[in-house]
């Protein structure tokens, strides 16, 4: 006797060649409206490339580019309202940038400066490095929103690897229980460093992780920014309307190394990666825009020039950032520094002065 049945759906609007495979959602009905998405995805890709270059020359710490995943991180951010709250993973600089965090801030943070996490919408969380630990934060934020009866919602992002973590499951379960306004997005880029998605779980989809939490789960083509944005749009609308959380698995591919500390050639061959370049999100959107007659070669060139200039300027500003003072490490530990820490701070300052 069957007591429960479930189904996981998959959505795509633009295929790899930029062809529309089903009627587009309202926000995409005018092709021109997609240009900001295309521009942000390009900006992210160019910025990432620059950041990687900075790291290679010793001017930035470890950096995780979103190469190949631009449609996920920009797509979800573009669906958010300004007063929604972003709870990002460590590869979500794209979403941060869309929401107003400066290029300089991103560089400052990955360059090893806490001041990089000051900027941005004031309720957004900074990126989360310990995998999956931010999922419960998203639940807490969503609960706060629900308790205040506000009409806004939270977007929380994790990777395919994150779906193996217990706290990620716990959080989704709590969000389901309380029908909280939160959208969980799994950016399934097929890899957790060297571990392929097939070695994380026997589950056929990552979207079905939602079933354990009693919430809806669905797959979208994570290289189709329209599909990502549409799914997040709908999930956010449901969340804001009190209809509870959802899990969206965006199926995409990590085209680059895991981070600048990684050498992906150790564990996957270039040939496989190459096949995925045919799926990547920028080209298909550009093809569509071009086919629709709203984007030209000249537009492309002008955009690239402008973005390059913006990025160069940001890098210059970043490199010019004065170093933080050592005693800064004490100044935001507590609202009011306790006495025994004040003594440590004074000692540090004295030693700095002494040996300066």
């Amino acid at each position: 006797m069957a007591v429960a049945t479930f189904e996981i759906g998959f959505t795509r609007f633009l295929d790899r060649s930029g062809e529309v495979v089903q009627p587009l959602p309202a926000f995409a009905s005018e092709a021109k409206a997609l240009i900001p998405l295309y521009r942000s995805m390009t900006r992210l890709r160019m910025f990432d490339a620059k950041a990687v270059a900075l790291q290679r020359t010793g001017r930035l710490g470890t950096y995780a580019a979103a190469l190949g995943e631009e449609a996920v991180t920009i797509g979800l951010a573009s669906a958010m309202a300004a007063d929604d709250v972003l709870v990002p993973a460590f590869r979500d600089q794209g979403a941060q940038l869309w929401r107003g965090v400066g290029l300089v801030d991103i560089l400052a943070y990955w360059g090893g400066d806490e001041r990089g996490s000051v900027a941005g919408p004031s309720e957004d969380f900074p990126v989360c490095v310990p995998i999956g630990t931010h999922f419960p934060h998203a639940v807490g934020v969503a609960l706060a929103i629900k308790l205040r009866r506000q009409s806004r919602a939270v977007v929380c992002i994790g990777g395919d690897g994150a779906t193996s973590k217990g706290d990620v499951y716990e959080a989704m379960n709590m969000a389901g229980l309380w029908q909280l306004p939160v959208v969980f997005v799994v950016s399934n880029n097929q890899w957790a460093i060297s571990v392929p998605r097939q070695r994380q779980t026997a589950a056929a989809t990552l979207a079905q992780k939602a079933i354990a939490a009693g919430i809806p789960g669905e797959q979208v083509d994570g290289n189709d920014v329209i599909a990502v944005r549409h799914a997040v749009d709908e999930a956010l609308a449901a969340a804001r309307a009190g209809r509870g959380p959802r899990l969206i698995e965006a199926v995409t591919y990590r085209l680059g190394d895991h981070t600048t500390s990684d050498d992906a050639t150790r564990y996957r061959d270039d040939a496989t990666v190459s096949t995925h370049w045919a799926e990547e999100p920028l080209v298909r959107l550009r093809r569509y825009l071009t086919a629709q007659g709203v984007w030209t070669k000249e537009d492309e060139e002008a955009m690239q020039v402008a973005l390059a200039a913006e990025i160069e300027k940001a890098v210059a500003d970043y490199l010019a950032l004065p170093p933080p003072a050592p005693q800064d490490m004490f100044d935001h530990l507590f609202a009011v520094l306790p006495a025994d820490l004040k003594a440590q701070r004074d000692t540090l300052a004295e030693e700095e002065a002494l040996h300066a």
Partner: protein
Amino acid sequence: MPEVTLVGAVNLALARAMEDDPSVLVLGEDVGVDGGVFRATDGLLGRFGPERVFDTPLAEASIAGMAVGLAAQGFRPVAEIQFSGFIYPAIDQMVNHAARLRNRTRSRLSCPMVLRAPNGGGIRAAEHHSESVEAFFVNIPGLRVVVPSSPAKAYGLLLAAIRDPDPVVFLEPPRLYRALKEEVADDGRALSLDTSFVIREGTDVTLVTWGASVVEAMAAADDLAADGVEAEVIDVACLKPLDMGPILASVERTGRCVIVHEAPLTGAPGAEIAARIAERGLMSLVAPVQRVTGYDTVMPLLRLEKAFIPSTRRVIDAALRTLEYA
């Protein structure tokens, strides 16, 4: 003024904090209709409703993690972990997030949460229900760690913890939950989280302790007094940050120090206190610093728990040992 038990004082403080500040929430396993397995949250659901007092699923990691999210939003969640033996999954959230949210965002976000848990043995409980876990928290930068030892301190310190703008781990000794009653004025007055308390004055030896061991330290002081030895007793109460002032001042006078706690010896906060004495009070010492503590063994099941918990006898013996030095 009503006479209340320690757990009653916890309850009073929670109610007072909730009354005064609508952003205070109480959450955890069985804190709602059941009122907590020790009844610390008894009556709160009825009084403040299910939006401010609610049961969570059985998931300690995310109880702490959700509290971080609530706190970042400006709520003041007071999360209960049912026994400190089940607090370990919450450590990740406390160290990686709660205690550093302010720092890592340069104060853009902060985390005014309290994580409460019964902590310690002596109540004939089942396995894993009698642990002393304070050592796991005192090395975490950005955190406060508080252990009350009486109804009045439970009331005043818990209020302070809830009102504190930063995260606090609040460990309550269940052995004292109903052991004694004390008059506590429900006046909303918080105690300082930056002070060690001298709870008995004396000139011959300094007993430094916290939590349930305050009972044995005070009993030892009584016994010693009968033999003409005046012990000063200091209840540290706030283990982090640590106020060494009264301890160093006392040791300066007595030259002798016995540290008493129930947690296993090695690496517990007693070590930190001894270390700071060795650093800043060395010249006052006439006798080696003694520690009377739980052994470096797993907390035994109930038939042996009394043998593990520092006894008055052991405290007296240690004090007398310090008196053998001229």
